[in-house]
């Protein structure tokens, strides 16, 4: 009996399947001709995991927080890092430790959470310095004393000490985002994927984890009008899949890999626009000073001399980025503009001979992405020419980011990319002495560097600040621990029927996207 049933089911299935095939092909023809109006499909590299500004981690979190929560000031889209007023009607620095602001009236939270007031601002910023919150980015607000409420719209931020980065990596960055006091307290003081209330240009209509997030305009928003009736955000990890999906018309805007630039330049898909823009991020080869085999500075300098950066840029990045001049990227305070000397194989050999080193075997730890493994193989070939045998350990992201904690001083070379907002203090903080083995994988150990870092944080005179960062980069260079390769540009590919809002580093400012008809 059972067997008979099975057969009937199978027969029925085949009939349905052929029916489906016919319907399917008709449908395909149908979809192609339907034009979409005022809808935007955006690709992000991953799904967001937390929307709480005090706990954000990934680029997706960052993009979502920026579109969902208002800030007093927000970065402008365009090519220069400048801020503009967003939730604030006015904001001014009274003295080194006092900032006065006034909110625009009429900005409403979603749901029944009322208007955005100074209460919310005070709560949003002061929660960072509450040790009970355990925010991992407490540093953004560490010098905060309190936010004083003058009235519903007027408030004053009091700092304990001068804090230059507040205008660059605190207020207009995620830590400047304002959350609803009432909704957050209801959620127990922090939240992950359900903020309770938001007040950005768009709000979340639906979220299917790992598949898509749908945003729709928020009525209570008092800023420039939202351009799209619907924004669908698709998390696609593999940049290659995203590129193919763009060509197939499945998405309207995506970041693509640097290696694809020449190809897209040669043959851009119809209706595509390619936008290559510099970032403050930096890719470098770290040479661990604390490692036994690398303790001699001549060995480290020899490694730096032996490596052909141009070949790496050509081989791994298709000649798109420029050679780096140091930690600080072009356009930022402290950019030196002095390019490193060309490759010097003989010089490297001489240095190694002076150090009395031969038959050196080293290991380089890299992330297992195409760019890094390609770059590592070029470095391997380069070092081979001066008699250094290099083994490449390609690690998955989980293992890679833990490699310093794991191997400590046994760590030798690492090929690394650190991201950075447009303030050099963000980058220098990783190479302080107390960061050794945490993020200072080079074990840079310089009192001078540390002092300069903290002095620069408080220095508000641009010229003096710039000089400090010059000095810090000199220290890095002399240590022989860093070979800066490039500042990876961010490459955005989008359709010509949209006008995207892009931060100078290519980050998506979704609130500003507009359709072009």
């Amino acid at each position: 009996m059972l067997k008979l049933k099975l057969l009937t089911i199978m027969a029925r299935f085949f009939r349905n399947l052929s029916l489906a095939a016919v319907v399917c092909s008709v449908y395909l023809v149908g979809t192609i001709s339907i034009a979409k109006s005022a809808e935007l499909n955006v690709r992000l590299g991953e799904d967001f995991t937390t929307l709480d500004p005090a706990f954000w981690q990934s680029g997706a979190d960052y993009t979502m927080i920026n579109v969902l929560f208002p800030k007093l000031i927000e970065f402008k889209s365009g090519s220069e890092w400048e801020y503009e007023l967003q939730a604030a009607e006015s904001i001014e620095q009274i003295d080194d430790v006092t900032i006065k602001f006034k909110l625009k009236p009429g900005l409403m939270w979603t749901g029944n959470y009322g208007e955005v007031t100074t209460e919310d601002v005070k709560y949003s910023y002061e929660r960072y310095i509450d040790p009970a919150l355990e925010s991992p980015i407490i540093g953004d607000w560490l010098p905060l004393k309190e936010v004083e409420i003058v009235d519903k719209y007027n408030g004053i931020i009091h700092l304990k000490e001068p804090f230059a980065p507040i205008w660059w990596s605190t207020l207009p960055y995620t830590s400047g985002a304002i959350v609803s006091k009432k909704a957050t307290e209801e959620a127990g003081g922090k939240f992950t994927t359900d903020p309770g209330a938001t007040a950005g240009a768009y709000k979340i209509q639906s979220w299917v984890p790992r598949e898509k997030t749908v945003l729709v305009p928020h009525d209570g928003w008092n800023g420039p009008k939202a351009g799209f009736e619907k924004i669908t955000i698709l998390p696609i990890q593999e940049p290659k899949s995203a590129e193919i999906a763009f060509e197939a018309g499945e998405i309207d805007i995506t970041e693509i890999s640097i290696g694809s630039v020449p190809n897209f330049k040669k043959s851009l898909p119809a209706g595509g626009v390619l936008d290559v823009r510099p970032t403050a991020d930096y890719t470098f080869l770290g040479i661990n000073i604390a490692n036994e085999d690398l303790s001699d500075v001549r060995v480290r300098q020899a490694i730096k001399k032996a490596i052909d950066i141009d070949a790496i840029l050509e081989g791994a990045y298709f000649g798109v980025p420029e050679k780096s001049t140091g930690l600080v990227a072009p356009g930022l305070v402290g950019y030196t503009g002095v390019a490193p000397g060309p490759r010097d194989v003989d010089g490297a050999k001489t240095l190694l001979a002076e150090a009395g080193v031969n038959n050196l075997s080293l290991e380089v730890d890299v992330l297992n992405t195409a760019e890094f493994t390609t770059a590592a193989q070029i470095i391997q070939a380069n070092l081979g020419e001066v008699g250094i045998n290099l083994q490449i350990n390609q690690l998955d992201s989980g293992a890679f980011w833990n490699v310093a904690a794991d191997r400590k001083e046994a760590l030798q070379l690492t090929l690394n990319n650190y991201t950075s907002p447009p303030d050099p203090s963000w980058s220098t903080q990783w190479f302080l002495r107390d960061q050794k083995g945490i993020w200072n994988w080079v074990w840079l150990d310089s009192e001078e560097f540390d002092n300069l870092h903290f002095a620069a944080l408080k220095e508000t005179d641009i010229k003096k600040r710039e000089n400090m960062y010059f000095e810090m980069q000199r220290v890095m260079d002399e240590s022989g621990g860093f070979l800066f390769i490039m500042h990876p540009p961010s490459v955005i590919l989008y359709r010509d029927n949209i006008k995207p809002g892009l931060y100078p580093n290519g980050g998506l400012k979704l609130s500003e996207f507009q359709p072009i008809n």
Partner: protein
Amino acid sequence: MPLDQKRGLQNFTDKPSTMVVSRLFRDPMGLVGLLIVISFVMVAIFADFLAPYDPSKIDILNKLQGPSAEHLFGTDQLGRDTLSRLIFGTQIALMVAGVSIGLAVLIGSILGVIAGYGPNWLDFVIMLLFDMVRSYPVIMFALAVVVLFGPSLYTIMAIIVATSFPTYGRLMRTQTQSLRQAEYILSARALGIGAPRILLKHVLPNAIGPILIIASMDVPFVIALEAGLSFLGLGVRPPTPSWGSILNDGYTYIRNSKWILISAGIPLILVTIGFTFLGEQLRDIFDPKIDRGSR
């Protein structure tokens, strides 16, 4: 894992090896399989002579070229000759398969015989181990092991051994059990002949045929697993040319040059066909059930 191997492995009867070979030659499928396998082995052995270029020779100016007279299968993102890399990749693929399946057979057989011959509780424990290993999707197990020990050739081989020994273990156990009660074994025991000797003389010869079949069918799976892990960036260390990492390069640069991807798939497909044909044919020869009355 080939799943219906149980069928056809029982009732296995000993056949002179010469007959096996001649039967292999008589059937076109078996012959094709055998030829493919032999040629891959040859390519692996003589890779140094066959490869037109050094597989690690970087030539960035000539990267991502399509097929040409100089580079039959084109070049990769570092300008290395894809054909040469595939040829040397054969060494890696066959070595991984050979060594790890060999070890799996050895470990599996020992455990299988112990399970079949030993006390019941031991049998239970070993069978539990076999079942446990079988209850993971291979790639899941592999992912965990690779991130645990770091990606390398040895890790991959260890994973393959760990995931495929139960198949051989079960086989040997069945063989051992079925012979345990056989009259001539009982009488051999009565004559005071030790267990190891009995096993060596009677169990092993009977098991060789089925083991060959399974091993030969296993090779493509093992090679595919290695390729899969290398594809995910969890395989052999660069610049070692592995088919999987070449596939990965091909996927990464799919828009620049489709030739890397296309050519990296070819040896994988050929090897698969070769070993599977061979395995199928061996099965037909050894298995009287399917064999009966045909050909």
